[in-house]
């Protein structure tokens, strides 16, 4: 009985690995497994690519002008106290 991760276990600890949240011994175990297992290497790449793609989902970069107007008008009212 060895204490290496199985491929199935690797897919469950990948998020902790990427967050640097695995205990040091498990972190090493993860990296050792990836070094010899092409399938888990591909899975880790897919996860990284998933994160990268999510970061490219379109985002609204500025407030709708009418809303911005209302917020500033609200500030003026607040200032008058």
């Amino acid at each position, binding site marked *: 009985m060895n204490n290496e991760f199985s491929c*199935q276990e690797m897919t469950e600890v990948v998020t902790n690995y990427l967050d640097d949240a695995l205990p040091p011994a498990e972190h090493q175990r993860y990296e050792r497994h990836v070094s010899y297992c092409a399938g888990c290497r591909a899975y880790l790449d897919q996860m990284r*690519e998933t994160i990268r793609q999510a970061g490219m989902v379109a985002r609204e970069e500025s407030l709708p002008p009418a809303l911005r107007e209302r917020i500033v008008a609200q500030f003026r009212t607040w200032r008058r106290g």
Partner: protein
Amino acid sequence: MHAPEPPNSEAALLAALRRGDENAFSALVDAYGAVMHRVALTFVRSNAVADEVVQEAWLGALRGLDGFEGRSALKTWLLRIVANIARTHAVREARTVPFSALELTHEARADQGPALPADRFQGPDAQHPGRWVSFPTSWPTEPDSALLSAETRDLIAETIARLPDGQRVVITLRDVEGWNSAEVCSVLDVTENYQRVLLHRARSKVRAALEDYLTSESP
């Protein structure tokens, strides 16, 4: 020093705000208004309600200005206000999950399904239990590949939109907005551990959706 360091400029901005300086307020709205609106939208899903949440949040911030002690970054403080107001609106919208720490924890505990179906791995009686039946393949990343298309990003956005509330909010803040774990925990009031469970479930589902899409498309 001619150019003030960021913390000083934040302090100067706050002082100006307390004096009622409209330029300082506008600068703040331009810096953080859009992210506040996006965060509100991840909680309430309706533009009109998100608008209300953001407006209320700014009013709350102005009223709480004197109590802001600078222990957290101004941005984090503002986003916590947004999250708190959005939670109460989510309840009014008759949503089942009001995004309390308790509900998020409950969701993290309830949805503990595997990242992948068990049949992707060799069974307990096989020669190598838990080993891949067949390896996942590398995804093509050439400039003209499906992975880089707008359609792919729409697919990701749609997959995220269909996730359970906690998973949706966490993956949006972590991966779409690019926040770190501590920032998400601080705004959502959830432990790092549960936050990571929600993130793991969410990412596993988005990865699976991408895999389906990329392997079923004929190039």
